């Protein structure tokens, strides 16, 4: 009898293992098969965490989810249309001849604007820094890099169009139905871990929503301050540049520098705006002060604060692997991982599993 029971238990175990293995295999094949959809799905998930609270709020005052999401998408589409049709064509038309001129002139080695005569002795023989680093070479490399980046962006446009068509559809479905989908997924969890999984996913969900919301608020405040500053000094493309500064600011430590690069480059490489450099730096510094003193303590949760060493390490590794996008997503990813691990550990102890 007991042998029979043991045999049954074994069969049960094998069946369970096979079941979960098949689910994992299907999921892996699905992910492999929909490689093209990974980026739209990730963006749609971020959209879900950013906007679900807004949709929930309108639902709480009696507006159906589908109406809120439709209106929200119409507004976002209008904003994107506005940016694409009003800012991008003049930006490209202005950037293209500028880049061609820079690359040509950099070939001729006529770069005078970085001929800085700051005498910093960096070794015993009395060499100046600019004799070793050679600003002209540096600028030449930077311009080539910029040109390659622009070329890569242009080559990416077909993919971008596909993403631009698919992402709104997936975002719409997520905002409308992801909760139900999550509920059906959770039904697969065995009884023993069911309550714990439910609570963990709920807490993680809340943390991620709060995190993305605070990031959006932080980026919005930063962009607004920089946009007002740039408008006041009459700088080129104040809104687009301000959005870049605000978004880059999400990358800790390196973000403010990355965000400032386009502004500083425009000042350095465009004689018309070179006199504005001190003002531009002043605006960015002012926005940084406001961000560090007021915005971050108020909106960024302490629970997602990470050790600076891990943070910089993670940002550098992700940047190395996936470029600027990697740097942008490294911090949210690490924060989510940290929160998940903490909640998981606490819950596993509370539910007497470890």
């Amino acid at each position: 009898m007991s042998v029979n029971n043991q045999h049954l238990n074994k069969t049960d175990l094998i069946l369970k293992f096979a079941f979960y293995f098949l689910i994992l295999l299907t999921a892996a094949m699905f992910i492999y098969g929909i490689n093209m959809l990974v980026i739209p799905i990730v963006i749609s998930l971020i959209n879900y965490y950013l906007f679900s609270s807004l949709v929930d709020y309108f639902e709480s005052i009696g507006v159906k989810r589908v109406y809120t999401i439709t209106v929200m998408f119409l507004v976002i589409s209008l904003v994107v249309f506005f940016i694409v049709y009003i800012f991008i064509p003049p930006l490209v038309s202005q950037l293209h001849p500028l880049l061609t001129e820079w690359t040509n002139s950099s070939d001729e080695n006529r770069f005078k604007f970085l001929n800085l005569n700051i005498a910093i002795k960096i070794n015993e023989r009395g060499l100046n820094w600019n004799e070793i680093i050679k600003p002209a070479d540096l600028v030449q490399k930077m311009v080539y890099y910029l040109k390659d980046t622009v070329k890569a962006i242009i080559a990416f446009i077909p993919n971008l169009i596909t993403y631009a068509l698919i992402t709104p559809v997936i975002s719409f479905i997520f905002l409308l139905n992801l909760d139900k989908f999550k509920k059906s997924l959770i039904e697969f969890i065995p009884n023993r871990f069911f309550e714990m999984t439910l609570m963990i996913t709920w807490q993680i969900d809340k943390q991620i929503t709060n995190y993305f919301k605070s990031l959006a608020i932080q980026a919005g405040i930063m962009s607004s301050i920089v946009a007002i500053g740039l408008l006041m000094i009459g700088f080129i493309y104040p809104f687009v540049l301000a959005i870049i500064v605000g978004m880059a600011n999400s990358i800790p430590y390196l973000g403010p520098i990355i965000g400032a690069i386009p502004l500083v480059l425009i000042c350095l490489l465009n004689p018309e705006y070179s006199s504005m450099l001190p003002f531009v730096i002043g605006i960015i510094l002012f926005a940084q002060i406001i961000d560090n003193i007021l915005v971050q303590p108020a909106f960024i949760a302490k629970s997602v604060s990470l050790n600076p060493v891990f943070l910089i390490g993670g940002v550098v590794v992700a940047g190395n692997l996936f470029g600027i996008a990697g740097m942008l997503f490294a911090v949210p990813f690490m924060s989510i991982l940290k929160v998940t691990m903490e909640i998981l550990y606490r819950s596993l102890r509370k539910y007497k599993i470890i």
Partner: protein
Amino acid sequence: MEFPLWKTILKNNVTPEQEIVNFLKETALFGKLKGRTLREITNLVHKRNYATNEVIFEQGQAGAGLYFIMNGKVNIITRSDGQDLKLAELAKYSFFGELSLFDVQPRGATAIAVEDCTLLGFFQPELRTIIEQKPKVGVEIVMAIARVIADRLNSTNQVLEKAYIRSKRTRKDVSE
């Protein structure tokens, strides 16, 4: 002789959602709620199956919410000083674990399936979600639960009162 057409027309087409609504109507907790509210709850509850002797939750474990018994029987047992004490055997339409809906406090007792059971779980995340998304429905649900908890508290108070008076009388008799 069979009449497939009549069979189809007369067939009782109860959807799983309707089945849950019908079940909830019979429970003491949600029985008095409006049909619309019951349909909202139906979208939130989790239907779970438990085998005979399977532990639903354990005493001391963090709790997440309450369970309704849709089918089968459940034993509620407490363990104190190494001894098990059976508090109740619950059957269809009963519910248990309602205090965990409001706080992740340790479960006060263990729940074990006496026979193969189908339970409907209603948990904290769902309650919070409905309160945030549909406050009116959320308030109705919370009020229904509060009523039942208040009833149970009243009965407990009465039992305590009787026990106190009885013990006082016994003490008086002993001293006399």
